């Protein structure tokens, strides 16, 4: 086929002569930036997921009160998955005279499959990670258990009918998680010892778990196999069902990184569009010539498409390779900061390269190149003959479609895409309008400046439309760069605000109401921060709108979990910190206004969504045999990552006070104050202390990783922005050469021409920066307040950096271009024509 070989030869020639250099380079940067981001975010994302998976100590966890069939383990092993088992149950442990209620965990070989155990030599001592589990006859006890029992490492404890020796202090286990149900003091023993304890008897409250871990695809396939086979009472949990705290942080991190990669897409696409337009413009004559020599339209079209396909293939392969190596380089640079080895990127990231290249080419390079097909052959005789312009719907439709599709593919969050696209689209129009005004406003200034500046300003005005396009392109580029810096700072500030250094690191539950005052006094005496004790009681949801829950079909494991598990209820007169009513109304603070009315309930929004609850629905709870019914009068959004006591279901005051409940609180304890906790446990033995420092550290770690990844992404975005500048400068180079030659022929010195070009770009850059700062401030405000729920504070540096940075960056790029323009021999430029 002549067109294929001809297209390839032509492409080779264009590449060799540098005709396609800017387009290919821009596309290469686009693909490299996006795949590097993709690879890195994929790895970070998998790391976050894996750590979220630590909450399960597995990728998939099957939980049941009954014995779990070995068939599952056999099937999982057959599929190459790792399997571990554990049993847990409430029990009592004795150390001489002392005894304590414990959560006994009998763990088998391989536990935990995800995350690692941490142990210490002495109670509350520094902990180190271990891959071991207690051996037969051994036990690992947590610090507060040992404190309560007056035991230490080396002590012998009796569990049921079996004696075990404490060999380590258990500091952290991955699946201690955020669920409060089994968070009493832990004693971990080897599964092999379980029969000897004789604790597993008919009627004993044993919870059995089978853990699975392995390749994500194999896990998914295994889950599909498992779901239809699981027995009644068997519950399957995956990473997606991880605790709300971890999920809130991971979601925010993922959204944040997606926003950064989204900026790279736009900048690269702009650069590619500009390069393609220049390429098309420079090829009008060649295509007219080819048509003059007999090339039919379909040949021109086929040749264009073939070249695009080859460019897409080559750039995606090379760009993906660059992207891959770029991210491994960054991962290597950050190796000391990343706590764990990052997992390899998921395979679908490799598709990102070719998808990016194709989408960006189709959306941004194809429209200008399509015009080539319709170049009139008569252009060889009359150079003013142009191909008819493409219909706007084609040009903008393709570009918007491409950006939209790519953004959605990357972000998978239509709300975020909507906000950003809307903000950018509006800003694009605003920038264009404002650019037009500024270009017009420049014209009268020409009379008041010297010859070089007059030349520069004249150029901006004379190439009015081009100037506006450049201001918009630069402005959009700077805007997204500023936006990223702005939103990043705001988000980091928000994170720091929401998780201050004194964020609670201990939960204390099971505080008897009559001991509440004593516990608070103990806090004061120990120098711990004063804290509010929140009432809590356990209840089971029995009916929704008087329909028993057994008769309602709920969708999803999480909903079933909510229904099956005992819920923690609370009551409050006022809305707790970190809670926001999204619909309905919080009840009046005055108890008199509540007296005699039916109980009111405020429900957390996710809980409501999962269970399909709406305002006005009634919920019935069984609390120690008594049914209490209330009506939902408000839905709340809860910030779980405040680590304050929060509840899915909160009742209005005056309803639950009579029921037997406990108090819960969270408190920040400095490392040197940790020994006070030993005293607390000794004084109030039934108070259960949950050490969430490890969980908090995990969340912090995720945030640190996200922040580093974002700074890295920011560098790539900057590179993409520079490509836009180069493409823009390149686009007007020929015209400038001709002008420079003309001026020099008329007697202008090289310095004057040089200064004129520099002045033009400095002014263009400053204008673009001015508009960018305005746009970024506006979009930042919308993003911050509507998407990320931040308090927005305007940042003056956006204006300083926008205008100054724009003038310097565009000015420098202009000067670089000016060097070659000015040094170009005038005769050659004049002979080549404009």
């Amino acid at each position, binding site marked *: 086929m*002549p067109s294929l070989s*001809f297209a390839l*030869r032509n492409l080779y*020639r*264009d590449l060799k*002569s540098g*005709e396609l250099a800017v387009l290919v380079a821009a596309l290469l940067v686009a693909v490299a930036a996006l795949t590097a981001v993709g690879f890195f975010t994929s790895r970070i994302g998998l790391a976050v997921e894996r750590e979220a998976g630590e909450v399960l100590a597995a990728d998939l966890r099957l939980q049941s009160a009954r014995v779990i069939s070995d068939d599952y383990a056999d099937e999982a092993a057959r599929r190459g998955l790792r399997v571990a088992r554990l049993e847990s149950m409430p029990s009592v442990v004795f150390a001489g005279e002392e005894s304590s209620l414990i959560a006994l965990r009998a763990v088998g070989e391989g536990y935990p499959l995800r995350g690692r155990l941490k142990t210490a030599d002495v109670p509350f001592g520094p902990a180190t990670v271990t891959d071991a589990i207690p051996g037969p006859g051994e036990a690992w006890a947590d610090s507060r258990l040992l404190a309560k029992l007056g035991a230490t490492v080396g002590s012998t404890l009796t569990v049921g009918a079996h004696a075990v020796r404490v060999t380590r202090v258990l500091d952290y286990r991955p699946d201690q998680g955020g669920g409060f149900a089994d968070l009493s003091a832990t004693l971990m023993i080897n599964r092999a010892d379980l029969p000897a304890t004789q604790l597993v008897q008919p009627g004993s409250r044993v919870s059995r778990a089978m853990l699975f871990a392995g390749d994500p695809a194999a896990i998914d396939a295994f889950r599909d196999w498992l779901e239809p086979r699981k027995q009644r009472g068997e519950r399957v949990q995956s990473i997606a069902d991880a605790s709300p705290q971890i999920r809130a942080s991971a979601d925010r991190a993922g959204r944040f990184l997606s926003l950064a990669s989204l900026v790279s897409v736009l900048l690269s696409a702009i650069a590619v569009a500009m390069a393609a337009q220049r390429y098309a413009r420079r090829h009008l*004559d*060649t295509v007219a*010539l*080819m*048509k*003059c*020599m*007999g*090339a*039919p*339209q*379909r*040949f021109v079209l086929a040749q264009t498409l073939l070249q695009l396909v080859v460019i897409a293939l080559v750039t995606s392969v090379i760009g993906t390779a660059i992207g891959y190596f770029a991210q491994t380089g960054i991962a290597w640079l950050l190796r000391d900061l990343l706590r764990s080895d990052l997992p390899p990127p998921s395979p679908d990231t490799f598709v990102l390269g070719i998808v990016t290249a194709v989408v960006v080419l189709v959306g941004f390079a194809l429209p200008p190149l399509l015009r080539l097909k319709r170049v*009139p*052959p*008569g252009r*060889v*005789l*009359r150079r003013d003959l142009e191909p008819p312009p493409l219909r706007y719907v084609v040009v903008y439709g393709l570009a918007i479609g491409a950006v939209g599709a790519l953004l959605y593919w990357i972000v998978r969050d239509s709300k975020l895409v909507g906000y950003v696209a809307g903000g950018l689209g509006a800003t694009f129009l605003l920038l264009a309008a404002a650019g037009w005004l500024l270009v017009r406003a420049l014209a009268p200034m020409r009379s008041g400046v010297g010859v070089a500046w007059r030349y520069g300003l004249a150029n901006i005005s004379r190439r009015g439309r081009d100037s506006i396009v450049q201001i918009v392109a630069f402005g959009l580029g700077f805007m997204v760069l500023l936006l990223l810096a702005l939103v990043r700072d705001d988000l980091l500030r928000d994170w720091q605000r929401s998780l201050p250094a004194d964020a609670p690191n201990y939960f204390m539950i099971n505080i008897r109401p009559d001991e509440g005052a004593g516990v608070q006094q103990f806090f004061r005496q120990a120098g711990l921060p004063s804290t509010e004790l929140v009432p809590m009681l356990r209840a089971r949801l029995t009916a929704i709108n008087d329909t028993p829950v057994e008769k309602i079909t709920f969708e999803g494991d999480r909903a079933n979990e909510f229904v099956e598990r005992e819920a923690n209820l609370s009551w409050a007169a006022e809305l707790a910190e970190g809670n926001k009513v999204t619909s309905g109304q919080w009840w009046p603070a005055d108890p008199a206004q509540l007296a005699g009315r039916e109980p009111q309930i405020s429900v957390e929004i996710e809980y409501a969504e999962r269970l399909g609850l709406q305002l006005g629905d009634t919920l019935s709870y069984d609390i120690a045999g008594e049914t209490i019914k209330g009506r939902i009068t408000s839905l709340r959004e809860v910030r779980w990552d405040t680590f304050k006591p929060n509840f899915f279901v909160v009742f209005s005051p005056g309803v639950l006070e009579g029921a037997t409940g406990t108090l819960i609180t969270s408190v920040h304890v400095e490392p040197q104050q940790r020994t006070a906790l030993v005293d607390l446990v000794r004084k109030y033995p039934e108070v259960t202390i949950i050490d969430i420092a490890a969980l908090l550290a995990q969340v912090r770690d995720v945030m640190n990783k996200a922040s580093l990844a974002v700074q890295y992404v920011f560098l790539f975005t900057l590179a993409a922005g520079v490509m836009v500048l180069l493409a823009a400068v390149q686009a007007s180079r020929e015209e400038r050469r001709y002008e420079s030659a003309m001026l020099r022929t008329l007697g202008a010195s090289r310095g004057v021409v040089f200064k004129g070009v520099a002045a033009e770009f400095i002014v263009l850059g400053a204008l673009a920066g001015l508009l960018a700062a305005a746009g970024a401030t506006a979009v930042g405000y919308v993003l911050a307040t509507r998407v990320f729920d931040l308090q927005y504070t305007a940042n003056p540096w956006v204006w300083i950096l926008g205008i100054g940075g724009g003038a310097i960056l565009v000015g420098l790029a202009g000067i670089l271009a000016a060097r070659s323009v000015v040094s170009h021999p005038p005769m*050659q430029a004049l*002979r*080549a*024509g404009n």
Partner: protein
Amino acid sequence: MRMDEDTTVVLAAEGLGKQVSSPEGTLAILADVTLSIHRGETVAIIGASGAGKSTLLALLAGLDEPTAGRALLAGNDLTQLDEDGRAAVRAGHVGFVFQSFHLVPSLTALENVMLPLELAGRRDARDAAKEVLAGVGLAARVGHYPRQLSGGEQQRVAIARAFVGRPDVLFADEPTGNLDAATGEKIIELLFGLNQATRTTLVLVTHDRQLAERCDRVIRLEAGRVVAR
């Protein structure tokens, strides 16, 4: 007409006209042009600027569509063909030389000459192009880009490119317009020499009276009409 002239009509116009819309109303650039040109003939189209010379050339070569009459090229009625059909006729029968050379700046001299053969799918494009370039005295400059060649050399490359496909008709639009007199003379010698050697029909638009007089026939245009032939 020379005695050895072939009487086959290779190019003809019948009542050919071209009107364009302008702010002042309809403007006739060319009106009622009827002519026929035989194989191997050399014809000059002369006239003042704006007389319609380039328009006539464009219509005869099928680069533009007339608003009246018809043009026939190698037996094909160009007015009955769409753009691709006209392109196919040009591919098989026509070569061009332009005032501003119209070489592709990104291609070497050799690659420029190969272009029409490659478009026609010829596998021997490189060898044929080299041979023709040698014929115009540029064997040593095949690897040079247009910007590295003088104006005369560029036009010689353009002539080589026009002749490499052995066209029936060669259209030349002011072929010496951008060249000094001495170089222009050499180019004319080359053009006519190749015309005789290949028996190609030569239709050239020129201001140059001397050049026109070397042709078998001169067609003079004034205000879009043929006033002498």
